[in-house]
């Protein structure tokens, strides 16, 4: 695990772009942290780097939103999910995100730690901590067995 300090929302977007560089088809990224910590802002950075053209907003009420991607990495779809309003595990399981991402997609799951067992051990985690009004600390954990990421803390 390594931590990255983001001084403002633009830094958080840049952190999303940095993570996107390591993602491969099939990856699930769990975004953990309190409301207002920057999970959706971070997601816009990941989406931009994967070639999503449409606007990325919080999927709180839709639960999951697929975005078409344009990149040369085999990632065709970005599933952006938010379990904040999910009231039971059945609802979370119903999204079948772990299966949707197989082969040609990745998923960003806000509040995904609530249903962690659904994603299996092989997932990314970004843990957001609010330091003060603008400053955030983003702690990144890569899937076990993946080559260690370098340059995240920079």
């Amino acid at each position, binding site marked *: 695990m390594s931590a990255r300090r983001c001084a403002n929302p633009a830094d958080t977007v840049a952190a999303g772009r940095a993570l996107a560089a390591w993602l491969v088809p099939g990856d699930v990224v769990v975004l953990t942290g309190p409301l207002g910590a920057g999970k959706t802002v971070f997601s816009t950075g990941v989406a931009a780097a994967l070639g999503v053209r449409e606007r990325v907003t919080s999927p709180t009420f839709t639960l999951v939103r697929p975005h078409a991607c344009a990149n040369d990495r085999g990632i065709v779809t970005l599933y952006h999910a938010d379990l904040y309003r999910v009231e039971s595990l059945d609802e979370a399981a119903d999204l*079948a995100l772990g299966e949707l991402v*197989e082969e040609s997609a990745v998923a960003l799951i806000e509040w995904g730690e609530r249903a*962690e067992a659904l994603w299996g*051990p*092989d997932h990314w985690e970004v843990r957001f901590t609010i330091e003060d009004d603008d400053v955030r600390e983003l702690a990144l954990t890569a899937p076990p067995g993946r080559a260690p990421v370098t340059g995240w803390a920079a």
Partner: protein
Amino acid sequence: MILGIETATTACAAGLAAGERRVESLLASDRRHVEVLVPGIQSLLAAWPATLGDVTRIVVDHGPGLFTGLRVGIATAVALAEATGAELVGVTSLEVYAAEAAARGVTGSVVAVVDGRRGELFAQSFTLGDAVVARDIPRVVRPRDLAEHWAGAAAPVTFVGDGAVRYASDLGAVPGATCLEVAWPSVETAMAIGAQRDPSPVHPLYLREADAVANFPTRPWP
């Protein structure tokens, strides 16, 4: 007449059985459950020939397995049972694989393995002799952990199921192990098991639920 429905893997299959006569049809092998299942059942009935009204029992594989497949198969089975008044019976993908191994003459220790996705297997151990006897309950396990466990056991073991196809390199490396390649749970076998069982409500067997439920209340909830 029994109608069998199989959607626990990327394959979608259905079958019919009455008396000594049995048919089974692989409808698709590439996750098109929602598209092919109901038309496939209609085709099987037309070819028999029979109608839904002739179906007195529906046997459905309720997992563990591919979530996106199971919900199609179980929803279809429940809906047809409601509509026709047919009895509903659930079988597990793992017991069907074990019975399939027995039908192919395998004896001794058998581990049925379904690809659980996300780098994991759904697995259950059986002993095959005069009967198929479960040795533990279905669980989620990493292929390497399962292989290590059986590498430490003295007895030869047979792995059977789609999980043994996908993870043949891990499981086949266990000394004395055999991988029996069965790509999806046989509907004929499922119908044979289901014919002997009392009807009961059918719910999908997800396995990961137990772990995740434990996590749920420990987190702040809006």
